[in-house]
């Protein structure tokens, strides 16, 4: 497992004299789920578009699997915020279009079978013949996910994929994406505004300061266990420590980060594990929970 499957090396994006961001460095391991969180206008989407090859950095390079990115590739599937389905094609037609783009010599039956496999995976069996206009927002985004997965990409890039959905649908789709990513070991780079979504889905949450001149402030190494479930994630002893850390960042630190005065090295973005007490590693979670509550002043340890 390469620690640097994706390596963002000193990228910058400038429009005239204003730099949206400058000198961003980040590496992402294979099979990791990375979320980027930050306020609007900090250039999250631009970073994603550069990773996709849809946009070019003004400076710097992105290396994926030991190759510099200079254009879009079938190795990197994009799930668009607006789902971007082709309205004149059916569900099957949309997914099959992607499949036939990847495997140009496949027969019709092979393309159909591959597309069907991923339509089934996202739970749209039976809706193959429908057009996007006949689908709900959640179903459209499922088609978008099936289309991205069907080309078996090395990386999935998701640009706020659930932000246009209602809360209930969003929850269901997050569960689906998590299930699919865990079973397939997909490398994912996702942009979100939603703190809970990031904590539920991501292994690592990258905090981005406000633009212009945005920086990658910290990487939060998600301390929650891999087998977390939506139903009881909020009961985990470290959940609120992570959540509060991120929210504190979004509310105040994202604005004042430059004034914090810490020696910030863009090449070595600090990794933090909120709430985790280093010398308690190996101590059962329930005990850690008590210790943490004590530390945060919510409850005293009973002797």
């Amino acid at each position, binding site marked *: 497992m390469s620690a640097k499957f994706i390596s963002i090396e000193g990228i910058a994006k400038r429009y005239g004299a204003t730099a949206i961001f400058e000198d961003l460095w980040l590496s992402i391991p294979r099979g990791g789920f990375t979320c980027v969180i930050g306020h609007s206008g900090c250039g999250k989407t631009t970073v994603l578009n550069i990773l996709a090859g*849809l946009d070019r950095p003004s400076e710097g390079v992105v290396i994926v699997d030991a190759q510099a990115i200079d*254009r*879009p*590739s079938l190795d990197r599937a994009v799930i668009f915020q607006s789902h*971007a389905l*082709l*309205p*004149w094609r059916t569900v099957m037609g949309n997914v099959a279009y992607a499949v036939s783009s990847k495997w140009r010599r496949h027969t019709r039956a092979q393309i159909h079978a591959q597309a069907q496999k991923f339509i089934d995976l996202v739970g749209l069996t039976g809706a193959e013949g429908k*057009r996007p206009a006949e689908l709900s927002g959640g179903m459209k985004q499922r088609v978008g996910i099936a289309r991205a997965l069907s080309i078996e990409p090395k990386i999935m890039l998701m640009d706020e994929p659930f932000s246009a959905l209602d809360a209930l649908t969003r929850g269901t789709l997050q569960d689906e994406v998590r299930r699919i990513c865990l079973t397939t070991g997909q490398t994912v780079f996702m942009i979100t505004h939603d703190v809970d979504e990031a904590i539920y889905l991501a292994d690592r949450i990258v905090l981005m300061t406000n633009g212009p001149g945005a920086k990658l402030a910290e990487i939060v190494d998600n301390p929650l266990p891999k087998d977390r479930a939506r139903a009881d994630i909020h009961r985990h002893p470290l959940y609120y420590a992570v959540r509060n850390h991120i929210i504190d960042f979004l509310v105040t630190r994202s604005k004042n980060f430059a004034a914090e005065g810490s020696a910030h090295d863009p090449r070595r973005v600090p990794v933090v594990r909120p709430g985790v007490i280093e010398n308690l590693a190996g101590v059962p979670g329930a005990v850690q929970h008590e210790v943490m509550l004590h530390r945060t002043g919510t409850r005293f340890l009973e002797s």
Partner: protein
Amino acid sequence: MTASLTLRAALVSILIFLAFILAWHLAVRGTAAVQQMDPEYAKLMGTTATQGKSAMPGPLDVGAKLWEHARRPFYDNGPNDKGVGIQLAYSIARVGIGYLLAVLVAIPIGFLIGMSPLFSKALDPFIQVLKPISPLAWMPLALYTIKDSGLSAIFVIFICSLWPMLINTAFGVAAVRKEWLNVARTLEVGTLRRAFTIILPAAAPTILTGMRISIGIAWLVIVAAEMLVGGTGIGYFVWNEWNNLSITNVIIAILLIGIVGMLLDLLLARATRLVTFPE
């Protein structure tokens, strides 16, 4: 229970039609005074003078003549006496050829303009100058260079069908949503495949709308063009019957031009519906 809107509308349409026919019939009844004249002279003067019949044919005259045409639409008694079916066929053929040539030219150039900002800017002044020219203004130039009246009429149809299709194609192609193009880019779709699988279906409703406008204009222009070039066609038929002072035939020709125009428009409307997608 109230009848459906369509049925009620049809009923009102029929009533309006009957009222129009009745008004027409009453308006052209013989009203003028009958003049006393020598019977030999009366033979030369016709029914208008001798029986006070209106010079304007009534609906019954037109109906009878229409029936006559319907029974023998394709007779050919030489250059000045052909069935209306033949005349219409000539007109439709000219419109068809000129229009198809325009499609072949307008859609590729429209694609070029829509996809390339350079060509869009470079060709814009030419289009802006050429577009407002009345198609008939080209006629002398066409006759002089082509030296064939039939081909000149086709050229005039070509030039008048060109602009709406060209402009709509360019607009439709330029307005294809960025996100659909990005889908094609991330799937590494080649230029040609992108043009046919993304841009063409996305722009098709706009292109077809342009084609529908064009066929309407082409059908308007063919009548005028054939009046000028003569020989055959429904436009020539109208002018020839005017020279024959057969107002009945002129009215019939007007009616037929309207019906054919409506059918052509209906055809393109159907085609537009086929390529339109709901969003």
